[in-house]
């Protein structure tokens, strides 16, 4: 055929003999009518999302007082959730950009969904910095816009401002990257839907496809832009969570004021992101019957990354303790002892067991290949990583310097409601994505198929043409 492949090259697509099957499999959910299950879950998550927004409305109407914060613990669920969602986003970019640069072909099956996950997670994350403000209607002031308010400008010393730049850059690049990757698939859908006579849908995908025609010129440009964007996105994988970690690292609060935070946060972010990828992929490949494209080998690779990053995070936890002892700073020592044995010890140990202990099971091959186990462990990772942020934020604040100000923090229903609401938002968007956009990159998966056969019903078509189909 067109190219020769080594027989020992790993098979990333199974049971697929020709390209058309891929197109059919992936386009099926988009072209068919929504089933009951989809309607129910989308409707439900939509309701949860709406409730979440209603509660956000209540917060903005009544004030941050509706939350459980106090002057000692000024951040609680809000920033915990922010860091949690930003962290989740990281896996998508890592998969789509870094693994592309490192030429890991298995990423082709999962990059689309992971990138979608990234974008939706960043949406959720972006909500919190806005609503955690006492006066969210002034969020505009976070941007260095020339203004008529005298010489008022933003404070470039503040890590919160760096966050604004980091997150908005990240969102923009991710969105562009994601969208660009879908252009050839939009063209495929456009052509297929036009053939089926569904003009309206076809015209929408046609609009989105930017007039893609599958020409060599198109492909050439596409490849160049993809690589450029991947190059741009790669440093973002590191920079975003580094900057988020600086919210804490540049402060003077013991437990926050730590130089280990940037690498520790990045590792944690990738860890949590891959945990979420596992959760989503296990469900998606099952429901959409995409086991041939997201194979057991894929899931195993993801599990390997989880155990690797989980161990980095574990090492970071222990390093923190070592440094606290080694620094000789009593405040530092106290805060870490208090973390592990103080009033929030339960949160610490949930974090520690979910992030460090349970992922170690992924050393076993049968665990990595057992989807039930993997699913449970991935949920643990999500829980553990949420608690990591909670532990860092709340336990450091609640007993900082002056004992007279020590306080405890108990979240209210409002905060819990907003958190659950963001899950509603995330899944609502993800379900819409799963219905209306190709969850797997059609044309990239095709490059993984070994020795594709010419399907009988396609007559004269060439390989190139088949890819476009």
């Amino acid at each position, binding site marked *: 055929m067109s190219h020769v492949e080594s027989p020992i090259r790993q098979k990333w697509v199974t049971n697929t003999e020709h390209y058309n099957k891929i197109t059919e499999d992936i386009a099926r959910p988009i072209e068919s009518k929504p089933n009951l299950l989809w309607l129910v879950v989308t409707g439900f998550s939509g309701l949860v999302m709406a409730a979440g927004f209603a509660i956000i409305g209540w917060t903005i109407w009544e004030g941050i007082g509706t939350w459980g914060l106090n002057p000692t613990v000024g951040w609680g669920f809000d920033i915990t959730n922010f860091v949690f969602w930003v962290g989740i986003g990281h896996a998508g970019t890592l998969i789509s950009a870094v693994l592309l640069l490192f030429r890991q072909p298995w990423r082709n099956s999962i990059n689309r969904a992971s990138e979608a996950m990234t974008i939706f997670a960043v949406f959720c994350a972006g909500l919190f910095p806005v609503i955690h403000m006492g*006066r969210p209607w002034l969020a505009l002031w976070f941007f260095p816009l020339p203004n008529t308010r005298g010489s008022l400008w933003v*404070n470039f010393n503040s890590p919160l401002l760096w966050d604004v730049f980091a997150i908005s850059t990240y969102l923009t690049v991710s969105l562009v990257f994601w969208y660009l990757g879908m252009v050839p698939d939009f063209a495929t859908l456009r052509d297929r839907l036009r053939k089926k006579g569904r003009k309206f849908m076809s015209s929408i995908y046609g609009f989105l496809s930017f007039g893609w025609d599958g020409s060599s010129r198109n492909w050439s440009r596409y490849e160049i832009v993809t690589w450029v964007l991947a190059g741009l996105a790669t440093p973002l994988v590191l920079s975003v969570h580094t900057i988020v970690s600086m919210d804490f690292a540049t402060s003077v609060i013991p437990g926050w004021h730590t130089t280990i935070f940037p690498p520790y946060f990045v590792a944690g972010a990738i860890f949590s992101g891959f945990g979420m990828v596992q959760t989503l992929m296990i469900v998606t490949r099952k429901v959409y019957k995409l086991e041939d494209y997201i194979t057991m080998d894929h899931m195993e690779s993801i599990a390997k990354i989880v155990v690797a990053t989980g161990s980095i995070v574990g090492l970071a936890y222990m390093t923190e303790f070592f440094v606290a002892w080694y620094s000789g700073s009593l405040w530092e020592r106290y805060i870490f002892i208090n973390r592990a044995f103080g009033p929030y010890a339960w949160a610490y140990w949930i974090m520690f067991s979910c992030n460090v202990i349970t992922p170690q099971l992924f050393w076993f091959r049968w665990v990595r290949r057992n989807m039930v186990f993997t699913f449970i462990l991935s949920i643990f990772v999500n829980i553990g990583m949420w608690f990591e942020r909670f532990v860092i934020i709340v336990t450091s604040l609640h007993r900082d310097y002056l004992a007279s100000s020590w306080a405890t923090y108990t979240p209210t229903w409002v905060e819990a409601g907003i958190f659950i609401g963001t899950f509603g938002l995330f899944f609502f968007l993800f379900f819409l994505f799963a219905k209306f956009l190709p969850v797997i990159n059609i044309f990239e998966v095709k490059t993984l198929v070994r020795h594709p056969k010419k399907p009988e019903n396609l007559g004269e078509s060439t390989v190139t043409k088949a890819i476009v189909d």
Partner: protein
Amino acid sequence: MSRPKYWRGIEELEQSPEFLAQKDREFSTDIPMEDALSNTTEESLGFNANRRDFLKVMGFGMTAATLSACFEAPTKKAIPYVKKPDDQIPGVANYYASTTPEGNPVLVKTRVGRPILLEGNPDSYTGRNGIDTPGHATILGLYDEDRIRAPHKNANPSDWDIVDREIANKIAELKQTGAKVRVLSSSVLSPSTQAVIDEFLAQFEDGQASHVMYDAVSTSSILDAHEATFGQRMLPTYQMQKAEVIASFACDFLGTWIAPNEFTWKYVVNRDAKTGKMSRHFQVESMLSLTGANADIRFPVQPSQIGLSLLNLHNKVARLVGKPTLPGVESFNVAANGLDKIANELVEARGKSLVLCGINDTNIQQVVNAINYMLDNYGNTVDIDNPGLLRKGSDTDLATLAAELERGEVDGLFLYGANPVYNSVYSDAFKKAIPEMKLSVSFAHKFDETTELCEYVCPDHHYLESWGDKQQATNLYSVVQPTINPIFNSRQVEDSFLTWTGNKIDFHDYLKNRWFSIYEAEQEENFVDGQAFWDTCLRKGVYEKEATSGGRFSFNEVAILEASKGIKGPVTEGMEIVLYEKVAIRDGKYGNNPWLHELPDPITRVAWDNYLVVPNAYAKENGLKNEDIVSVSIEGLAEPVELPVFVQPGLARNTVGVALGYGRSKNVGRVAKVVGGYNAFQLLTRNGDNVSYRRGGVSISKTEKTYPLALTQTFDTLYDPAKGEVFGDDYDRTDYIIRETILPFYNGEGGKDNPYRENVEKWEEKRKHLVTLWESHFKDPETNRNIRWAMVIDLNKCTGCGACIISCHAENNVPVVGKKEVRDRRNMHWLRIDRYYSGDTENPDVVFQPMMCQHCDNAPCETVCPVLATIHSNEGLNQMTYNRCVGTRYCANNCPYKVRRFNWFSYYNDELFRDVNPYQNELGRLVLNPDVTVRFRGVMEKCSWCVQRLQEAKLKAKIQANSSFAKPDDKNLTACQSACSANAVVFGDLNDKNSAVSKLFYDERSYTVLEEVKTLPSIKYMTKVRNRTVEEYEEKEAIKKEVQNYTKV
């Protein structure tokens, strides 16, 4: 060239017939004037108005407009002066001298005719450094929405004419029947008011009418004891400033007793470690009072043992000075040989010592007099040549009145500043008798427990609306003058009495005449006439004469023998209860004042409630913890009382306590209603005629119920021994926050083992290594002509009273947030007083530390604000720009001192805070300082060092000196500084080498809190120095070690 022909449309160009027909008409259709004016509606074109309707509508419209114009439109009185009064400059405050009802001379700051802040009158003797904690809050009482707004008859609003006529008739009736008439009041401090009352009573027949005075928290026994021992009923003036040794027995003279602000400055004068003028202060008490917390040596003893302790002290002192001892005294000592130590030191400082006792028992007070007499303290530290006049109440008189009430003899009762149904031991007698009287009149501001029962309520003015005078001691007078027009339809009580006496004179003139007579009597030569004398006194606020001395009083030795027999021995069995006053709430008179309720008790740090304080040991034995409700049954009390528990270190064994002043009637006001609590006055007993504030026979049983308490500080010690084990002993970080030492160490005694010197050296060594990234913040003071503000707080002087917090409340429009929010730790105080314990729970050492924004030079809050809402001024202030704040709370998180306060809700208009926040009603808003913004929801706020006051002072100085580099005087710059009776807060310009603050700032005793964090605060604290010997120190250290070892296991 011909001009072009312009046309507007094709019609015009074509000159169509329609166009030609239409072109000369002004309107395209005819105006239906004919139809409109015709009477037939059918003919009209599309609208139904005809001429008649038109006229009707027009007629109605004009009439309506005319009528509505006849009503007076509601006017908002915010009109600028057309002709400005000379003394009113918008934006500039006027100060008037006046006096609070408790006799504190004050300066009232008014802005555009409304009083907004009280400060101590610097020209006065008693209030020179400041006023007491509740005194600051009295200004809010002026704007209390729940004040009685008009005279009432049978709880219905009435008219002064009607009330006056009816009362006059009833008085005439009473005169005829000859029934007893009584005026019942708290101590009347005003000689003029006393004269008015006397004049009023004089119209009755001899013996028919009399004036009874009593104080809710009585000190009658001191006056009675002096009558017994010196033959004259009087309250001595105590001179703590002359005392080298003070032994105080259950006397909270720094917190609640008689005149705390006066005693505070007198006490603190003698607490200066630097000059070595440091008094030794022993405190023997059952509760942990504010005074006990400041004492050098404190002995907790049970309430019933205090009398016995004093008897033993008497005999020990007598033996030492060679006077006869009292016979039959059971031997007793506090803490092995505590009384011997006290006796020795008292005798050593003979003539310069002082024994005080806060127990209201005439016998005990006589023994106190005897001790002071033996020690030659009379004429030195106890002045009876110029007796104090702040307390005049007599328990005996009250008892007599109660007996008369029981017998139904009293038919006319006038209540002035008295609320006997609530706060007297004879509550039931009053409750029963008042409704049956022919005439019962109350002059109260509020419908309190007694006023509810009275037939007539003739509301008195608030003192800020009144004329008057006060006499604090025989040589000290002060003036009360109105600072605002009466807000409501109230009338000064003196005017009421004068009216009913038939004296037509206005009380203002009456007062002036009396002062003219003072002028004549005193033969003041510096004034041309009485008017000049009066004017000067009015402006200055006080008239003070030199204290006289040399009066001879003979001491009655026989009385003491009698008295000593009357002192009961210790109650050996069962628990005892103490009814004590809180620093802010006191006797509950200001029970509707939210500022006072929001102020956490300095010791317990609980706001908004009273509760049963229980010793730690007892709580441990019986499984009690904070907020448990216990049922307290007391011998002689019909029903057990249910009270929430607060476990308090430092209480004597078997002693519990409950604060007075709570459980007010719902009618007192909306704040009193939400506070609730238990009225502990119900537990008062009588000991002879004396009202007793302690009681035995208490038993406590735990219930399953709990009650939330608004604790503002839950963690009292940094040392967490349970976890100390992990990292060893040096786990204690208190050094970074609190520093204290003892006098010998401070003075360099102790050689190599001197921990204080060691510490100072250690910190000096560390300081050498401090470098800064912000050199520009530290300009050379030699060349710098700017101001650099700084503050020094002397922990040795701060007594923890909290007056500064209330003053800050008033100055900076700090919102009140109520119990629930305080419980959630969201109190908005810009300034708080942290309280730390050390040592064992039986008798801990206490340190108070006022904590507010430290105005750090390397402020962690400033770097993290994304929108530059908090920035550094070139004068060293950390400034908060509310308008710019978006509320990320990052600054608060990053503040090591946790002094930033966030507006979680719209405190100024949220329904949740309707009852507690006075700024939510139009009247309460008048107390707001117009120089300070009321903060919006979602905005961070914090101590600004009263930047508005600094600005004002700077401008004033510049104008006066006609120089842009002139610097203001460093007196009374911040509200906390001006409020501090102890002068513990020193504030000023650090760049001025001669300023008080720059001298203290670099004193070896000064340190910054959390120096290691390198925030470089502009506030320094001065190490607390306790006057203890090295042996006492080591003893205490051994206990502390023991505690640590004990809790570690």
